[in-house]
């Protein structure tokens, strides 16, 4: 990344070639398998991603997997048909968000947040898109299945990791990722009286 351009070394050339050629994002382990015991693949990836930073194609890391993609500001040139690859329903969108911000999470927990049953098709669609996966069972009576997001989810939405989820820290800090019961306990301790709930009686 020091800008010593001109002649990339063999490691960079090999990384470049492998990542360009691959149909899937590649992990460091996969790259090591391809390139053999190359000196320092993580450093090479950083250097390469630095080199491509300002270009029309960028090298990015998503959930530990690396791939090349076109720069975001080139979207207008490349978006030939304006249709979204997967037009999610609102239910699908909310369900995906709930899973991403709460994972691992059970269907019942999703329903508690949405206040409505999760239609059978919703989870199927998200699963089919490759964005969510079953992630074990919760050790409570009934042992409900848990859901979590996948590496493809991070890849598709351009997130380096779950920590990059928009507003995750704020939501967590505001307690908005805690279940209502938990939040209630905290609130009640602080007493409800000063809340804005009853001061509008005079409004009408």
């Amino acid at each position, binding site marked *: 990344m020091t800008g010593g351009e001109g002649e990339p070394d063999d490691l960079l050339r090999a990384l470049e070639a*492998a990542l*360009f*050629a*691959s*149909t899937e994002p590649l992990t460091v382990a996969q790259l090591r398998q*391809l390139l053999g015991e190359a000196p320092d693949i993580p450093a090479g990836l950083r250097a390469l991603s630095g080199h491509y930073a300002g270009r029309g194609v960028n090298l990015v890391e998503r959930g530990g997997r690396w*791939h*090349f*993609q*076109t*720069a*975001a500001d*080139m*979207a207008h040139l*490349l*978006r030939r048909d304006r249709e*979204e*690859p997967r037009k*999610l329903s*609102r*239910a699908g*969108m*909310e369900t*995906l*968000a*709930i899973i*991403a*911000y709460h994972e691992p999470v059970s269907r019942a927990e999703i329903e508690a*947040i*949405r*206040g*409505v*049953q999760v239609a059978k098709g919703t989870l199927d669609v998200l699963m089919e898109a490759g964005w969510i996966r079953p992630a074990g069972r919760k050790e409570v009576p009934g042992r409900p299945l848990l859901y979590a997001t996948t590496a493809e989810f991070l*890849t*598709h*939405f*351009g*997130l380096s990791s779950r920590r990059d*989820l*928009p*507003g995750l820290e704020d*939501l967590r800090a*505001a307690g*908005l*990722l805690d279940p*209502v019961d938990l*939040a*209630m306990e905290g*609130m*009640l301790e602080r007493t*409800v*009286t000063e*809340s*804005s*709930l*009853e001061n*509008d*009686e005079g*409004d*009408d």
Partner: protein
Amino acid sequence: MSAADDMADLFESRRAPDEVLTVSFESWEGPLDLLLNLARSQKVDLREISILALVEQYLEFIAGARAMKLELAADYLVMAAWLAYLKSAMLLPKAEQEEPSPEELALRLHLRLQRLAAMRDAGARLMARDRLGRDVFPRGAPEGLRVDKVSIWQASLYDLIAAYGQVKARTRPVTHVVARRPVMTLDEAIARVGRLIGTRLDWTRLESFLPEGVSGPLGRSALASSFVAVLELAKQGRVDIRQEGIFEPIFLRNAAPSGHEIAS
């Protein structure tokens, strides 16, 4: 004041049915969804919404929807009943309030709406990101990486010769194996029983004629040979055999004349 009156009141209230109310009933994903949209229409921070106003709007909507002869989903009516209860509780003087307090119920509803709103916003922000295949694109025609699996078969020389040994062993005639077993031959047994019977004057168990301490295959061989030997000796008239019943112990004694017995 009954809930029905309440609803009628609200329906006739000055609140003009805004566009929210003209949208068909199916546009809402359940009561909470509807409530959230009503709350948002208050155009204030969700933290500062008036639950009471919200309840009124909801009941108003339900009444309006019913007037439009739309089929109401049970969920919405349950929520309407609950909200009507909440509203009446909130209007009661504090002293007459029941547990849980209406503040608590209102707070709970408030928290639920906040959470749903947070997730709805998060979902929208997710969808608005630079998405692969919509805003950013992977390589159009990647050559692809081909990984061919090659089995490296492993076997040691020992495995090889051991396998051959087993083939040979399995297919070899097995007669020699029997010869290796420790046995007591019939001749030996006749000689032994014949020699010992002279000293036993009373009925004696067959087993006591076996050599001391034999066991295992040799023991069984000795027993079998001795039994055959006893039959042979009986045939020669040298022993008497007695058995009380099937599988009972076999007893034998010297078939010598009784006089001899007394004499010794």
